[in-house]
């Protein structure tokens, strides 16, 4: 089944309302034409459908996505796939700030560059960026993997928790408590798998692993941390 929505003649509200009415196991292909930078397209979808956005989209595209496979044939504004739970969001162009912010699961692929704070606060999402990422990316990232084929801006991985970052290009500066670690065999396997899922190719061995040094895990490192639990 395939349906087409043209944002020249309908509204984001009408599209979202329709998508929210789908059964959790609904399938089908939804084409969205003339997005023209509209915000909040396909937010809160919870069905394994395919959604193709044919053009540039605005803020929060595919926000809080569950299950759906969303492809944007253009660029996106801030916070694409924010708080995504599952499914896949693929941006064929570039992404603005906060791509994949607080994502809990699923895969976000950005073929071009992603601006600052890519993967901020990520909580289990995997993000693969074909180009470079801006400053303060993966800030306070808790879980998940961020793979960057290009360069990373300043302050990478500031205040990281358990998320892991792999960068192939130049890292312009690490944030507080982030450190470069040796790339293990397991890392290489994971990078290879993620690249394959993203449809991008690069040699896993060329990546640098960045993870938390875990020195900020206790606010007062001098006090005894006695767990009573």
């Amino acid at each position: 089944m395939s349906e087409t929505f043209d944002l020249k003649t309908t509204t984001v509200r009408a599209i979202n309302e329709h998508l929210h009415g789908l059964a959790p196991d609904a399938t089908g292909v939804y084409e969205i034409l003339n997005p023209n930078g509209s915000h909040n397209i396909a937010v809160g979808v919870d069905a394994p459908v395919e959604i193709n956005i044919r053009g540039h989209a605005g803020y929060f595209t595919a926000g809080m996505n569950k299950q759906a496979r969303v492809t944007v044939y253009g660029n996106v504004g801030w916070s694409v796939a924010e708080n995504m739970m599952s499914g896949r969001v693929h941006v064929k162009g570039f992404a603005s700030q906060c791509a994949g912010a607080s994502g809990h699961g699923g895969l976000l692929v950005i073929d071009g560059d992603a601006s600052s704070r890519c993967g901020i606060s990520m909580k289990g999402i995997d993000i693969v960026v074909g180009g470079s990422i801006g400053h303060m990316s993966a800030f306070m990232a808790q879980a998940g993997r961020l793979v960057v084929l290009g360069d990373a801006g300043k302050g990478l991985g500031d205040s990281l928790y358990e998320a892991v970052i792999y960068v192939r290009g130049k890292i312009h500066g690490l944030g507080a408590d982030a450190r470069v670690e040796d790339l293990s065999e397991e890392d290489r396997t994971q990078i290879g798998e993620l690249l394959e899922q993203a449809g991008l190719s690069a040699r896993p061995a060329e990546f640098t692993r960045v993870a938390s040094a875990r020195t900020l895990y206790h606010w007062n490192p001098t006090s005894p941390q006695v767990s009573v639990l």
Partner: protein
Amino acid sequence: MKQMLTLEESANYNRKILNYIHQASETGVYDIRGLGAKRRVPSLDDLVFLTASLSRYPLEGYREKCVTKTVLGTRFAKKPIELEMPITIAGMSFGSLSANVKEALGRAATHMGISTTTGDGGMTPEERNSSKTLVYQCLPSRYGFNPDDVRKADAIEIVVGQGAKPGGGGMLLGLKVSERVARMRTLPPGIDQRSACRHPDWTGPDDLTIKIQELREITDWKVPIYIKFGATRVREDVKLAIKAGADVIVVDGMQGGTAATQEVFIEHAGIPTLPAIRLAVEALEEMDMLGKVQLVVSGGIRTGADVAKALALGADAVAIGQGVLMSLGCNTPHYIDADGRPVDVTEEYQALGTAPGYCHHCQTGLCPVGVTTQHPVLEQRMQPEWGARRLINYLTTLKMELTTIARACGKSNVHHLEREDLVALTVEAAAMAKRPLAGTNWIPGA
């Protein structure tokens, strides 16, 4: 001859400050603690009602009808929140509170026809199941935040900040991060959890406008969107929140509580609730939004008189956090065991370095009365049924006091209480609330 002792305490370097300097010198770290500002600040206590006499006509004590029904979120939401009285339970996290406490809050709120609020740690089934009306907080940390719970919520509260720590993020020390709390927050158990102070996916008010639209889209424009912030630049913040599209604005004054924050924040950041209410109401008036966007105030609301004064100053409802915890036993010398007997825990307070009546040690996770804890033994000390009963009594008392005052002011609806019903007892309160000093028509600065 015996030397005379000269015991002259310094006002600048009193025992509290000496103790602070000594402790800082010993440890090299600041203090983190729970609850809210402890020092005296101008407050609602500094206002009194001009109840009826010859020039006003009162209603009969507890008998005549006095409406308390309150509706929040009438601006854009298809389903505004309807409360039986203008009180809501403030957002407090599962993590800082036990699941038992969350359940007690839900049960009592449901019984009283009011709403309760999640906190920084996501929504637990215990609180969703026990709360008829539940406000789901969207916090900077986004711990446990997910679309399924967004869709289950009766309202969404975007938390920009908190009165106890405006501009600061939260802390949940490792002692309270149990396996369940850690799982809900996607973090390793036992580590100190720092909740972010900035939202991850928007920064300024222009982005917030689109964020609100996103949440409205996800919820199909059904539920109200609240915006909560700590009271600092209240006039500007209220206006920006209105502009961004809020249905309800929650302003939390500096007396507002926390489970764990740097003491320097608790006592030195933000402004008291008293001037915050006035500033918020003025901003609503200047935007012609009074009554269209509802105002909820919090931060040190403890009594029915506080509720009545907040309403008279222009609030639509209040949110209560610390008062609720105290109702559940916080700072009492004992807890009640399964047989209904009080069990003295003074020694456990002592082990925390405090005593009943003085405790603000929620950050330890070792709450002697089982309120702010994840400890499997301690959390059993506050059973949901007992707690709900206590809280229902407390809320009922607040409602009785509120309506009694309203009737004495001649109002058949608590929302008819007005500024004109209040005067100030101190020059500071007169200036902050813009009410005349009692016995004069003087409003400093007016």
